[in-house]
């Protein structure tokens, strides 16, 4: 390596390191808080060395039904993902293969739906759910999240299918598939990384969604994201409990992102135009 390239490399790595530290500092703080005793949390200066204790986790399990919270989060996310893909993939495909010039306009219109501020939709949706008797159920959160995420999945899969050569489906049709068969047997498997990326986005959106479940769920159906807020007491904030509870809300997403990272990058960059 020439000395110029070496310098360049060092500079780049240093910059990356600084940015990474900057982003990870709050996370590190959150994690350390959960493993400290209450006295250590507020020690000034904050100690880097401390005796890890499980006190915070014990109080989390004492005050929260963690399994019920986790269950709600999983049900809401899974329901949203399944419904959004079921609706969004065929819609994206249909738009991508449409010969109409309006198709691109439609696709971007769907993307625009995703950009609607959540609060704006909250009140009318709340009233609708009340009239339908779904208030307080997982369904209400799943439905509103599906609406927003389907719009996103449709746009994402539209870009993905458009970039995919039509030859593949035509080959499948001459190979004996019906049009529907070529969609299921060839188009969908070929779009696998796009679909996985859509799953990741949907899970992230609905797992982290706070506003809708806050107003639409009740005590036994509320997910982790809402429970985090209850760590805010009326007089003080139990930072340790918050940190411990945050573990449960963060780890699943981080794990998923780690395992599916490859598809995530592929899906987010391929074919988007």
């Amino acid at each position: 390596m020439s000395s110029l390239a070496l310098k360049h490399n060092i500079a780049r790595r240093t910059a990356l390191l600084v940015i990474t530290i900057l982003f990870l500092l709050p996370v590190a703080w959150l994690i350390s808080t959960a493993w400290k005793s209450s006295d250590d949390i507020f020690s000034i200066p904050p100690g880097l060395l401390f005796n890890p204790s499980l006190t915070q986790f014990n109080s989390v399990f004492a005050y929260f039904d963690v399994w019920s919270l986790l269950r709600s989060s999983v049900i809401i996310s899974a329901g949203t993902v399944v419904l959004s893909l079921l609706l969004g993939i065929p819609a994206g495909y249909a738009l991508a293969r449409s010969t109409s010039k309006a198709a691109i306009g439609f696709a971007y219109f769907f993307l625009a739906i995703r950009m609607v501020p959540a609060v704006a939709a909250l009140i009318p949706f709340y009233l609708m759910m009340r009239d339908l008797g779904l208030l307080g159920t997982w369904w209400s959160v799943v439905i509103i999240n599906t609406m927003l995420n389907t719009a996103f999945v449709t746009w994402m899969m539209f870009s993905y299918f458009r970039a995919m050569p039509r030859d593949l489906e035509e080959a499948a049709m001459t190979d004996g598939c019906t049009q529907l068969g070529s969609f299921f047997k060839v188009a969908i498997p070929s779009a696998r990384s796009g679909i996985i990326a859509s799953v990741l986005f949907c899970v992230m959106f609905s797992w982290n969604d706070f506003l809708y479940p806050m107003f639409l769920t009740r005590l036994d159906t509320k997910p982790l994201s809402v429970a985090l807020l209850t760590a805010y007491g009326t007089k003080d904030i139990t930072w340790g409990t918050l940190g411990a509870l945050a573990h449960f809300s963060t780890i699943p997403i981080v794990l998923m992102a780690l395992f599916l990272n490859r598809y995530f990058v592929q899906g987010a960059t391929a074919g988007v135009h």
Partner: protein
Amino acid sequence: MAQITFDSVSKTYEGGYAAVRDLDLDIKDGEFMVLVGPSGCGKSTALRMIAGLEEITGGELRINGRIANGLAPRDRDIAMVFQSYALYPHLTVAQNIGFGLRTRQVDRATIDRKVRETAELLELTEYLGRKPAKLSGGQRQRVAMGRALVRSPNAFLMDEPLSNLDARLRGQMRSEIAKLQRMTAVTTIYVTHDQVEAMTMGDRVAVMNRGTIQQLDTPRALYDRPKNLFVASFIGSPPMNFLRGTVEAAEGPAVRLGDTLLRLDPRHAGLGQGRPVILGIRPEAMRVGGDSGGLSATAAFVEDLGATLLLHLENAELDIVPPNVAEDDVDLNVVRPRLRAVTEGTARIARDEVVRLAVAPEAIHVFDPASGEAL
């Protein structure tokens, strides 16, 4: 096995653009038919009509005597090889080849056997477990061939299957495909823009331009007796030279080109005195160093191709018409049309040397300047 008939078939798009106009073509059972022409001539559209991938807006397409206009692609039992190969990226080579059999619910043992046989034939056995992304261009092309071959379909449709390969591999696959077709004797329709592929592979060749067939004939007949200027300029490489002149009767028919008088074949005796014509002379029909009575021109530059020399010649006296074919050097040729002549590689011809060219009267094609038809 199939016989495929186009009966004044047309394809007009919504905007009014006609890709194919009143196409009449009868492809015999077991025949290797090549559709050749420049891009946009309608050859691919015609092919996709046979596959059922393109809607027919007029006329009738018959497969084995049965009208196929509205038949779904899967009901035609036709295999297609795409220019992009269109291999299924999520399946292995073996699954790609066996896909058509699987959708037709052939039993597993038969699929396995047929896939193995096909792979052996195409020398793909060691790659059967690989995904297409891990194959070279030539291997992908062979998988695409295998996918078509394995099914023993009614007909093979090939849409420029070799254009993504490098020149050496293309030459190799050209003879390979022709051999496979003779072996299987399955009706094959092959689309290409490459006249070398058309000449070497087809039993018959349909030269197309602007949605219609210009000439349908054997490769030899296309080369020897082109029906019009388009076919004359499209078939043959390097392309035919075209020269404007007027008919003049000496002892038998002849044409005046500037200072020179070129003798024509006696079959052209009926041409009227003073009639303007375009003469077509193939570069390989020009004999360099001929005796008096031929053309003379100055060598502008000489391409040494090893076995032969390709001479680019200039003569301000001659009214040279550029061939109306899209070629790499077409721009250069339109601005300053030159004569081209091919001679033995052993000849020593320098730049700016004046060359005499003799042309045998029977090698001269005569065309009507207005209609472009051969006379």
